[in-house]
Structure formats: structure tokens, C-alpha cells
């Protein structure tokens, strides 16, 4: 049976690892998705199709590739990252980055394309233009963030393969659930599952609340118009 302090440690590690992976995915995905959405170059459709495929990357495949790379005898073995929280962060970033990139591109492509020209026509620099496009698409961008976080906090394959599920070091909620289930400790597995679901729900509830605050203004405007 897991004791309370251990559950707390696993929960905190789960949040830390997935939050860091999501933030890194955002740092990569937001500019990359913006470049794909606003760019006008030949390989754009091809890259977008790769990103869209990446949005459905099986975590176990990511886990396998990262494990090969970080394995002691692998190309990055000298870094000694296998079975560490950093390895999990790397794998989760690879899973979440295409999600954030793809949804960022979709969010910006949904804006009126003339908005770019309008902002430039009002004297915006390129950086100001992108900033105001992000501002305008902030609700779907928040959804991209939520989807990115959801894709990693709930995955188990990659975390298990590159983290090793080491007690007190790399055990996260999903890998702990797998372990407890394999031991036949279904009560413990169910408790951890409930904790994971509540945690995911609370984080999404907070982000949804922010999203709905934005939508509320639009709803009011629609009623006033009518």
C-alpha cells in the first residue's frame, strides 16, 4: 500500500513533469504554429500534415525512440538521463509539442486573414502584429494549451519506458496506477485513478473558467445585437 506522503510526492512529480513539458511545448509550438499559419511557402502543407500526424503520436513509440536515444549505449547515453524525470519531460514534450503547434496553427488560420493586413496597415511591426493575433485567438490558444497538458498528464507508455517507474524518483500517477494494477491492488489503483481524474478536472476547470469569461462578453454582444 502506498502511504499518503508517497502519493503526495507522486502527484507533485506528475504535475511538475507534465507542466514543464507543456510549457516547453508552448515555447516551441506557439512560434512554430504561428510561422506555419502565417507563412506562405511551398512546404507549408507538407509540414502541417507531418504536425497533424504528430498530434496522434503513440506515446509508446515516443517512449521507445527517446529510450533508444538516452540508453546508456545510445547516442545521448553519456548524458545519463534515462530513468530520470528529465527523460520523462523530454518524451512528454515530444508528445505535446505537435499538439500545441497544430492547434496554434489552426487557431490562427481561423482568424480573418485580412486582420494581418489591417494590423500592418495601422502601423504594427511584425512582432506587434503577431502579438495582437495571439491576443485575438487567445481562447483557442488556451484550448491548445489544455490539449497539450491533457495529452501528457494522462499518458503512461512513454513515462514508463523512459522513466522506469522508480519509486521516489520517476514514479508518476499513471505509472503508479499500472504498477498497483499489476500487483492486484485494485483499490489503490482506483484511488490513484480518481486522484488523476480530479487533478485533470481541476486544472481544466480553471482553464475553462478563463475561456468562458472571454466567451461571456461575446454572448452578451450577440444578445444586444439582436
Amino acid at each position, binding site marked *: 500500500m502506498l502511504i499518503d506522503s508517497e502519493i503526495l510526492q507522486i502527484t507533485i512529480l506528475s504535475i511538475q513533469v507534465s507542466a514543464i513539458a507543456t510549457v516547453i511545448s508552448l515555447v516551441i509550438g506557439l512560434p512554430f504554429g504561428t510561422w506555419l499559419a502565417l507563412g506562405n511557402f511551398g512546404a507549408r502543407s507538407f509540414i502541417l500534415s507531418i504536425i497533424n500526424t504528430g498530434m496522434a503520436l503513440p506515446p509508446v513509440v515516443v517512449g521507445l525512440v527517446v529510450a533508444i536515444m538516452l540508453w546508456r549505449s545510445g547516442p545521448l547515453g553519456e548524458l545519463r538521463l534515462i530513468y530520470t524525470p528529465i527523460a520523462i519531460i523530454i518524451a512528454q514534450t515530444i508528445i505535446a509539442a505537435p499538439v500545441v503547434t497544430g492547434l496554434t496553427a489552426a487557431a490562427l488560420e481561423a482568424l*480573418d486573414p485580412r486582420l494581418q493586413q489591417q494590423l500592418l*496597415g495601422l502601423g504594427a511591426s511584425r512582432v506587434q502584429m503577431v502579438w495582437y493575433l495571439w491576443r485575438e485567438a487567445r481562447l483557442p490558444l488556451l484550448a491548445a494549451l489544455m490539449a497539450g497538458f491533457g495529452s501528457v498528464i494522462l499518458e503512461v507508455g512513454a513515462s514508463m519506458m523512459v522513466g522506469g517507474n522508480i519509486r521516489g524518483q520517476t514514479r508518476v500517477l499513471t505509472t503508479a496506477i499500472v504498477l498497483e494494477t499489476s500487483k492486484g491492488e485494485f483499490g489503490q489503483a482506483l484511488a490513484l485513478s480518481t486522484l488523476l481524474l480530479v487533478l485533470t478536472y481541476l486544472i481544466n476547470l480553471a482553464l475553462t473558467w478563463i475561456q468562458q469569461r472571454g466567451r461571456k462578453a461575446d454572448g452578451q454582444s450577440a444578445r444586444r445585437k439582436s
Partner: protein
Amino acid sequence: MIQILDLLIQRNGSDALRVDSLDIHRGETLAVVGPNGAGKSTLLLALARLIRPVSGEIIYDGKSLMQLDELEYRRKISFVFQAPLLMDMTVEQNVALGLKFRGTSKDETRERVGKWIKQTGIESLSKRRAGQLSGGEAQRVSLARAFVLEPELLLLDEPFSSLDPPTRAKLIEDLSALLKADHRTAVFVTHNLNEAAKLSHRIAVIVGGRLRQVGPARQIKAHPADEAVEAFLQELPRSR
């Protein structure tokens, strides 16, 4: 102020606009008329340096547009599109947007925004969000947002075409008064000849991707430069 020489613009691989020669004088309002898809908006986008010509030159105050710093030039102009394209913020914030881009001080921004909100008749809307405005109100905000910049060159691309006739007539009247009072150089795209005659000093007619004729409305109506201009004038509904 602006000279256009041998300009050729291509879009999607085919010729979109040819202008052999066109001068725009400081303080004048030039209306650009022509059928849909003739190349009118392309001219405005080229003047705003939002598209690059294949050949030819646009000379602004004696310097080729391509030699000027892009951002510096775009901050001398202001563009009003067919759709208001307001940002999801209050009317006041929308009007102040261009000034914010230019780093204008808060006091000056407040003063200029207040002045132009009043001039364009949207004082009562200043705290409303863009999504809460009617089409006519939104287009007034769009005009205020352009005028507040007090640009050297104002570019207006059919800003009233999607509005109902009474709102449109009122806005045309107000814009006409603003342009006359302000003596601002403006290029106004429309496919409505009466609107063009009312607002402008001269009219440029673009048909089939080529600038055909430039002159006062009366001259164009009396002496169309070629068959294409004549055909365009004949196709206009009588009410226009």
C-alpha cells in the same frame, strides 16, 4: 506626393494591375472606381506596401517606396478595409491601437482618441466592446481608428459597401465632411461612381486590371477614355 510609374502587380501568377502613370497630389482625395475584381484593392495594397510590384515604381515624396524603411512608411499611412476588422476590445482601445503601435504617450493618446471619437460621432459607444456594435457603428470606429493616426496618406477600401443604404449615405456624408475639413491625402476605392464623385477631387477608373482614365467625374462621364471605361459606365445601375 505620390507618383506611380509603369507599375505591374501580379497575384497568383497572373497580371492583376497595370498602371502606366498616376500622380496623387498632397491634400487631394482620389477615388478609384471599377468593376469587382478590376484591381482597385490591389492598388491600395501596393500603396500600403502590403504587396510588392513585379516591376515599375511607386515614388513617395521623391523616394522609391522600396527604398523607404517599411515600418516607417507604414506608420505614415493608415488603411481602412471593407470589413471593420475590429479587435476584441473596447471602442476606445480599438481607436487607440495604431497610436499604441507607435508608442504614443498616454496623455497624447487620450487626447487624440477623445477628439476623433467625438468627430466620428461614436462618443456614446466608447466603453462598448467591438462585438456589441452594429455594422455602421463598427465602421465608424474603423474610420476613427484610421483618422486618429492623422496619417499623411489615408487608404480606404470600400469601407461602406456592406452597410445598408441609409447608414451608408450618412457615413459618406460624414466622411466627406471629415476629408474636406482635414485636407488629408486620401485614396478611396469604390464601385459607386456617385459616391466617388461626392467624396473625391478626381477619379481613377480601373477596368480589367489596367488604369484606364484619371480625371474629374464630369469629364469621365462625358468623355470615357476607351470602350472599357464606356462599358463600365453603362453597366452602372441608374441609381448610382
